[in-house]
C-alpha cells in the first residue's frame, strides 16, 4: 500500500477547511448559488449534519477556485451558472410536456427507432419504463447476493457507515472547481456495493434505476467493488438526451478493492447547448482491474478524463474512449493513469471523430511515481476527420519518475479518404452510407466492447450523423 505521504501528494485527501454558519435556511427559488441554497438542498434530502458540512466546505472551495483556463472555452459558463437553478424547483414547475420538446430531437428519436414510451423518458417528460418488471427480478437476484444498487440518496440513508467511509475519498471536493461544485450541490446518481467474491453476469444498468427521476444535472455516483468481486455498470444511452439545463457536472467515484474487476461503461449524447464537465476516477488496489469505457457524443463542450489511480501492486487500469464532435461541438476528452505501485499496467485507447466544424481534443496524463517499478503504460489515440473544416489536437502529458517504467504513446490522424469512398461507392453504397461504414469501422475496436444494443444504437446514430455530412 502507498504511504500516506504519497496519497497526500496525489491530492486525494479530504480538504481540511472549517466552515460553520448558524443562519437559518430561507428558501427562495432563484438562480445562482450560495450557502442558503446548499442548506436547502441538504434539508430537503434530510441529510445528516456531516454531509451538510461537507457541502458547505465544498461550496467555499468552489467559490475560491478560478475557472479553468485550459481545455475548452468556458468563457460563457459564468453566465450560464448565474442563470442555473441549483435548488430544483418544485416538481410541478419542472414538468415539461412532449409538445415542448424540440422537433429535431423528436425526429432523431423516431429515426433511431426508439419506442414511444422511452422517447418520453429520454426527453424528460415521461416517468414509466417498460422494463420495470425485468428490473425487479434482477434486483431480487442482486439483493440475495448482498449487492447494493440504490440511488445515492438511499445509499446515504440506508448504509451510512459504508457511505461515509468512501464518499469523497476518491475525488475530494478540492480536486477541481467542478468537483467542488458537484460536492456542494450533488443530487441523484447511484450507490453501488459489490460484496467480496460476488460475480455479476448481468450488468448493473443505471437506466433501470434512474428512469423515475431525471438524469441529475449534478449526479454523484459512488461505487465500491469489494475484494475479488466482478461487475459491470452501464450508464447512459446513445439517444440524445434533451434537457432544458445547459450544464451537467457529475462526479463518479469508484473503489476497486484487491483482486476485483470492475468495468464502467457510459455513453452519453447531450443536446448541443450543454456544457458537460465530469470528473470520474477509480482507485485501483492490489491486483485489481478497472476499465472505463467512455463514449461522448453531442454537447457544446465536454471535458472528461476518466482516470485510474493504480495504488496497489499489479493493479491494471484501462480507458477506452470514443468521442464524436459534430458541427460546433468540442470534445476535450481522454484519460489519466497514475502509477503509484510496482508492476502496475495501464492502457488508454482513444478514438475521436470530428465532423463539420467539430473539434476533438485528446488530453491525457500518464504519471509514473518513483517506486512504481516496472510499471507499463501504453497510449494510443486515433483521430478521424470527416471534413476539411474538422479539427483535432492531442495533448499528451507524460511524467515519469521511475526508471524501470515503460511508456508508449502513439497518435494517428486520418481523413476519410477519397479512394475509400470511391471503393465503397463502386459497390453501390451512396456517399453517406460509405462514410458511415468507414466511421463505424474506425470505432469498431471500441464499439465491439459495448453491449450489443448500445453498439447497434451507436451505429444507427453514426448513420444518421453521416447523412448530414455530405454536400
Amino acid at each position: 500500500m502507498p504511504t500516506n505521504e504519497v496519497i497526500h501528494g496525489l491530492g486525494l485527501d479530504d480538504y481540511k477547511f472549517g466552515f460553520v454558519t448558524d443562519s437559518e435556511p430561507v428558501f427562495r427559488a432563484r438562480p445562482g448559488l450560495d450557502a442558503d441554497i446548499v442548506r436547502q438542498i441538504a434539508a430537503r434530502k434530510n441529510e445528516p449534519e456531516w454531509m451538510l458540512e461537507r457541502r458547505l466546505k465544498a461550496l467555499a472551495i468552489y467559490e475560491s477556485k478560478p475557472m479553468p483556463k485550459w481545455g475548452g472555452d468556458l468563457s460563457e459558463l459564468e453566465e450560464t451558472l448565474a442563470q442555473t437553478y441549483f435548488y430544483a424547483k418544485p416538481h410541478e414547475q419542472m414538468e415539461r410536456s412532449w409538445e415542448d420538446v424540440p422537433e429535431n430531437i423528436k425526429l432523431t428519436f423516431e429515426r433511431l427507432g426508439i419506442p414511444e414510451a422511452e422517447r418520453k423518458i429520454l426527453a424528460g417528460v415521461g416517468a414509466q419504463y417498460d422494463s420495470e418488471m425485468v428490473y425487479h427480478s434482477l434486483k431480487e437476484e442482486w439483493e440475495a447476493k448482498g449487492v447494493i444498487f440504490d440511488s445515492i440518496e438511499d445509499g446515504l440513508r440506508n448504509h451510512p457507515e459504508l457511505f461515509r467511509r468512501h464518499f469523497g475519498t476518491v475525488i475530494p471536493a478540492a480536486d477541481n472547481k467542478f468537483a467542488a461544485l458537484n460536492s456542494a450541490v450533488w443530487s441523484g446518481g447511484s450507490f453501488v456495493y459489490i460484496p467480496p467474491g460476488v460475480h455479476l453476469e448481468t450488468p448493473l444498468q443505471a437506466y433501470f434505476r434512474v428512469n423515475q427521476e431525471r438524469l441529475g444535472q449534478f449526479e454523484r455516483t459512488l461505487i465500491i467493488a469489494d475484494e475479488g468481486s466482478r461487475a459491470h455498470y452501464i450508464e447512459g444511452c446513445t439517444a440524445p438526451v434533451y434537457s432544458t439545463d445547459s450544464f451537467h457536472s457529475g462526479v463518479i467515484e469508484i473503489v476497486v478493492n484487491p483482486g476485483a474487476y470492475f468495468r464502467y461503461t457510459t455513453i452519453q449524447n447531450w443536446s448541443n447547448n450543454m456544457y458537460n464537465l465530469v470528473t470520474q476516477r477509480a482507485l485501483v488496489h492490489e491486483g485489481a482491474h478497472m476499465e472505463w469505457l467512455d463514449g461522448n457524443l453531442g454537447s457544446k463542450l465536454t471535458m472528461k478524463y476518466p482516470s485510474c489511480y493504480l495504488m496497489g501492486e499489479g493493479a491494471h487500469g484501462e480507458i477506452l474512449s470514443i468521442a464524436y464532435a459534430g458541427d460546433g461541438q468540442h470534445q476535450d476528452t481522454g484519460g489519466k493513469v497514475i502509477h503509484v505501485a510496482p508492476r502496475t499496467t495501464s492502457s488508454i485507447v482513444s478514438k475521436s471523430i470530428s465532423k463539420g466544424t467539430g473539434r476533438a481534443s485528446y488530453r491525457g496524463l500518464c504519471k509514473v511515481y518513483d517506486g512504481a517499478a516496472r510499471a507499463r503504460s501504453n497510449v494510443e489515440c486515433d483521430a478521424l476527420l470527416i471534413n476539411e473544416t474538422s479539427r483535432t489536437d492531442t495533448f499528451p502529458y507524460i511524467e515519469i519518475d521511475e526508471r524501470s517504467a515503460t511508456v508508449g504513446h502513439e497518435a494517428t490522424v486520418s481523413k476519410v479518404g477519397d479512394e475509400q469512398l470511391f471503393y465503397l461507392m463502386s459497390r453501390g453504397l451512396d456517399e453517406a452510407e460509405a462514410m458511415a461504414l468507414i466511421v463505424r469501422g474506425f470505432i469498431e475496436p471500441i464499439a465491439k466492447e459495448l453491449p450489443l444494443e448500445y453498439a447497434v444504437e451507436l451505429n444507427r446514430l453514426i448513420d444518421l450523423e453521416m447523412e448530414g455530412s455530405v454536400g
Partner: protein
Amino acid sequence: MRKSPILAVRGLRASVAETGVEILRGVDLEIRAGEIHAIMGPNGSGKSTLAKVIAGHPGYEADGGHVRLRGEDLLGLEPDERAQAGVFMAFQYPVEIPGVSIANFLRSALQARLEDGEELDLFDFQDLLSGCMELLGMDPSFAQRAVNDGLSGGEKKRNEILQMAVLKPALAVMDETDSGLDIDALKVVAAGVNALREENPEMSVLLITHYQRILDHIQPDMVHVMVNGRIVESGGPEVALELEAQGYEEYKRTHAA
C-alpha cells in the same frame, strides 16, 4: 443475329481532374452480352484509367465521347448509381477499410440495392455469401476479416472476385486481377469467373491483364491493345499470343504521344 451492346464506349477522352493532364485520347470499345474482352498494353497506357472512368472515379474528368451501359449514359451517374446499374470493377489496388468485415460490407452493399423500407433477409444473405465462398474455394472465416486491411496481395484479389460473385454485375471490369495470384489461386479465380458466367451467361467481362496465362483459363472473344490512351489494335485471342512473342515495341513506335 448479333446481340446489342452491354457496354458502348465511343470517342472517350478523359483527363486527371486535378491537373487536366489528358490520359484517354479517344477510346472506342463495344462489348456485347456474354462476351469477354481483354485489354493489354504497356504500363501507364491508360488501362486502369479507362476502368476507373467507366466506374465513375471522381479523380478523372471525361472530356468527350460517351460511355453507355445497355444504352444508358453512365458518365452523368455517381459511382454508386453505376454500380446499381450493373457495373462492377475489381480494383488493381483494392482499398483498405479497417474495422469493417467483408461480410458486413457486402451486406451493406446488397442492402443499398433495395428500395427504401425493404430489409435484406439475413438468412438469404448468409446462403448467398457461403455459396459464393464455396464457389471460390474460400474458408467461411474469411468473411469475418476486415475489408483488405491486413489481407495479402492475393487475398485482396480474391476478395474482389468474392464481391463480384455476390453482387452479380452485368459488366465486370477486372483490372489485373491475375497479378499477385499464385498458380493455384489463379485457377480457382478463373474457375469462379467461368462458373459465374455459366450462372449468368449475359454477364460481360472486360479483363485487363499483362499476361496470356489468365487467358488460357478465361477465353476472350476479343483482345484489344491499348497504347498511349487509345486502343490501337483489336482482334481475336491470337493478338495476345503475338504480343507475348513480340512485346509492345512496334506499337509504341507507331503510336507515340
